[in-house]
């Protein structure tokens, strides 16, 4: 964490309210995100308790498992979830534009451009917190190896149609979310804490209600953001229940013990009643549903409020470009599903794992560069670290190369208060109409003035094209890091290339999970 971030946190403590960490929005937000707020049963990995899901903030779909130990009820939940989520994901599959992708010939190793298509837009799912993202991953893992009755007529406990497919998509989205700067699957706390610093620790920032209170305290409630955050975190009613339920997927133990467990017991009793009493059963089920809804709804509203807040920030210039990467990712997985590939393996082989890690590292460097270029506040942290410097041009001396057709190589003197950390001969870059212009560091004078020699983007002639050389008095920001550390961002990731198109070799489909009577999913 940069000292600038620490400073913002200290400021927030004094102000009792969050302070900005960004001046622009660093993540792409689509016009129509799908919000997913899941709850799980304590102690049962992947036994969902309920969820609110949908694209309309005023009309979420409520899904509840009135008895999570019952496999049929869990299947119903997952089938309903698939029915809600898959049409949303599929809605982007057929709106495409022509595009090109580089493919490597598996035999000759030669690279060639191939015409292909790219989906114009992509789905975007927003969950409350990083724990919600992990839950999407877990649900994905639990569903993708299931077999439906259609796929395997002999399967014991066949999964409802489309559930395995939802598992594959959830797995893909969760995997993509590990890519720095990606936006197919986002968490509300992640979004908010990227853009604001609170006066509490990052651990406490995981609590969506508290985080929101720091950033946008409710004027009706009164008190500072800090006070409201404390209330959101701790306040309980006379029954001992949290006033602001946790954002999940874990529930408040007091809620489980005082309300949920008795309601489930009544549901079990009503189901077991002999003679059957459908009215009593459905009343008992409604009671559980209402309880679960009461825990979900505040979080649902909080996620939408978070989106409103982040949306108010103007988008950073590079977010669109990164979203293109997400569109490639989506298109690639669409193709893999269409090509009939088996579900993602349980574990990546060593090569794939290393490649993914490497790609994430490159992507992080690129994200850091882009965010700095898009946002003076992020750039300030790089300047503080000696990785960039800003200042006024105090002198320009025209010089040329010695060749037959001399090219301009002007010397620039930059007066700066920043202390760039040059380590031997170094190149520096500035943004010229969105492209990086390179200069080399010649020397640093005793008074801190940095002397640079401009190297490119000045045209082909002897005289530089107008506007390509900064003038005396100009304010310019130079970076010691490259602006585009890696080639073409519009290319798909190998993992997103279907095997039919030379994607990574598949080791063959994996066995399904054995099903037992006691499985939780």
């Amino acid at each position, binding site marked *: *964490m940069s000292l600038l971030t620490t400073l913002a946190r*200290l400021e927030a403590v004094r*102000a009792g309210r969050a302070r*900005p960490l960004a001046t622009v929005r660093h993540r792409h937000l689509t016009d129509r995100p799908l919000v997913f707020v899941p709850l799980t049963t304590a*102690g049962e*990995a992947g036994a969902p308790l309920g969820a609110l899901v949908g694209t309309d903030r005023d009309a979420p779909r409520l899904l509840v498992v009135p008895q999570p130990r019952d496999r049929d009820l869990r299947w119903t939940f997952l089938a309903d979830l698939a029915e809600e989520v898959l049409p949303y994901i599929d809605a982007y599959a057929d709106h495409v534009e022509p595009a090109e992708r580089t493919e490597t010939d598996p035999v000759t190793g030669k690279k060639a451009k191939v015409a292909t298509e790219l989906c114009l837009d992509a789905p975007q799912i927003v969950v409350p917190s990083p724990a919600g993202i992990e839950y999407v991953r*877990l649900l994905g893992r639990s569903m993708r190896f299931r077999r439906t009755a259609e796929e395997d007529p002999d399967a014991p406990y066949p999964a409802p149609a489309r559930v395995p497919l939802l598992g594959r998509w959830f797995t893909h989205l969760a995997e993509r979310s590990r890519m720095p700067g990606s936006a197919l699957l986002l968490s509300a706390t992640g979004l908010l804490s990227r853009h604001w610093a609170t006066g509490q620790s990052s651990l406490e920032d995981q609590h969506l209600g508290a985080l929101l209170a720091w950033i946008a305290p409710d004027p009706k409630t009164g008190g500072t953001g800090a006070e409201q955050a404390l209330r959101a975190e701790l306040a309980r009613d006379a029954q001992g229940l949290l006033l602001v339920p946790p954002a999940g997927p874990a529930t408040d133990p007091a809620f489980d013990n005082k309300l949920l467990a008795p309601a489930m017991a009544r549901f079990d009793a009503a189901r077991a009643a002999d003679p059957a009493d459908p009215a009593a059963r459905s009343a008992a089920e409604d009671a559980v549903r209402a309880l679960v809804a009461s825990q979900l709804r505040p979080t649902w509203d909080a996620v939408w409020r978070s989106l409103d807040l982040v949306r108010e920030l103007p988008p950073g210039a590079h977010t669109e470009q990164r979203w293109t990467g997400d569109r490639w990712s989506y298109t690639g997985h669409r193709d893999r599903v269409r090509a009939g590939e088996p579900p993602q393996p349980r574990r990546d082989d060593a090569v794939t794992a290393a490649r993914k890690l490497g790609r994430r590292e490159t992507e992080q460097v690129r994200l850091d560069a882009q965010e700095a270029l898009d946002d003076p506040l992020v750039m300030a942290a790089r300047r503080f670290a000696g990785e960039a410097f800003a200042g006024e041009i105090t002198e320009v001396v025209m010089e040329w190369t010695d060749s037959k057709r001399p090219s301009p190589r002007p010397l620039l003197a930059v007066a700066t208060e920043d202390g760039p950390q040059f380590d031997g001969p170094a190149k520096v870059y500035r943004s010229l109409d969105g492209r990086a212009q390179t200069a080399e560091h010649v020397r640093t004078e005793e008074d801190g003035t940095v002397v640079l020699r401009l190297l490119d983007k000045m045209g082909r002639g002897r005289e530089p094209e107008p506007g390509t050389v900064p003038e005396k008095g100009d304010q310019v920001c130079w970076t010691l890091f490259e602006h585009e550390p890696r080639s073409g961002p519009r290319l798909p990731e190998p993992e997103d290339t279907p095997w039919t198109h030379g994607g990574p070799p598949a080791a063959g489909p994996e066995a399904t999970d054995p099903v037992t009577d*006691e499985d939780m999913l």
Partner: protein
Amino acid sequence: MPPRPLDARALAALAANPGCRRRALLDGAGVDKPALAAALGAPAGYGQSQFAMIRGNSFEAKVKADGGTELLRLVHEKLGRGAEPPRAAHLPDLAAAGPEGRAARTALALREATASGTWTLLDHPMLALEVAGTPAYLEPDAVVVHPDGRWTVVEIKSFPLIDGAADPAKVGAAARQAAVYVLALERVAAKLDGARVGHEALLVCPKDFSNVPAAAAVDIRKQRAVTRRQLDRLARVEDLAAALPDGTSFAPDRTRAQLTEAVEAVGAAYAPDCLAACELAFHCRDRARAAGAVGTLGRQVRGELGTLTTVEAALDAAAGGCPGGPAEDPTAEALHRAARLRAGALAAAGLPADRTEGPGCPS
């Protein structure tokens, strides 16, 4: 108030914040911290969901079913390949009166099992470990004695092992807990010929999304070394107590003001990690926040700010410090530079600046 016995979880957490004298004293003296926190007006939000409890108990019962056949098979498979596969499990009776009696009974059973050279399963044995001058009684889920005299600690947890991997944070906590048991077992083993305590514990969890037990060997040498060092370093409770004013008491029937005073008499070292490890965390956090301690923002922040330990001091330094103030501190200078950069960037974006009133300098 009856003292609240220390358990392995508390000990493992104690070792996680060894710098906190307050916790060392309260735990060492067996003070009921949840009750104390409630009496202080800052109750811990702990408490377990009954769903988790039921699940945990039913899974443990399943793992130990059939006289421990499955459990021994797992121990053999993961940690005892060299030995004969266990046929029938030997399950000694460990019942006795009181923790001391049970600990003595366990020690005897361990001696007999080691001498007999057969696979033995000790279900919920009782171990004693002296901590900060007070004995703590610990009850691991199980200890298995191998035919070669090796003792293995078994931890049964209900979080899942999915595709052979579990939540690293949970595995870490289980390993720290197992390390405490290993330390306690080592005291018993030291007095016995041919006994040694394995430095790999067996973690048994549900496999994937099922109720089927799966096991993984967890090397706990590192946790053992760390815990051991930190337990040794813990100030002795008597020494801590001796430093308290006479008549200090933590009984929950005292007034909130009296209790606050009593608690404040012992130094604390609050950090956000306390929230997950200590029942007093909300109280200590309130106090640390009220004092403006920068540690409330995280250990890393505190480290970064060095000698500037309060929010006000750090913000004063950011604003440029006081003329004639203490000689230039590099952290203060860095903060001042950071503040100028931040102000410039906020201004460039047309955002309101942070409050930059000058420091409260003495005039």
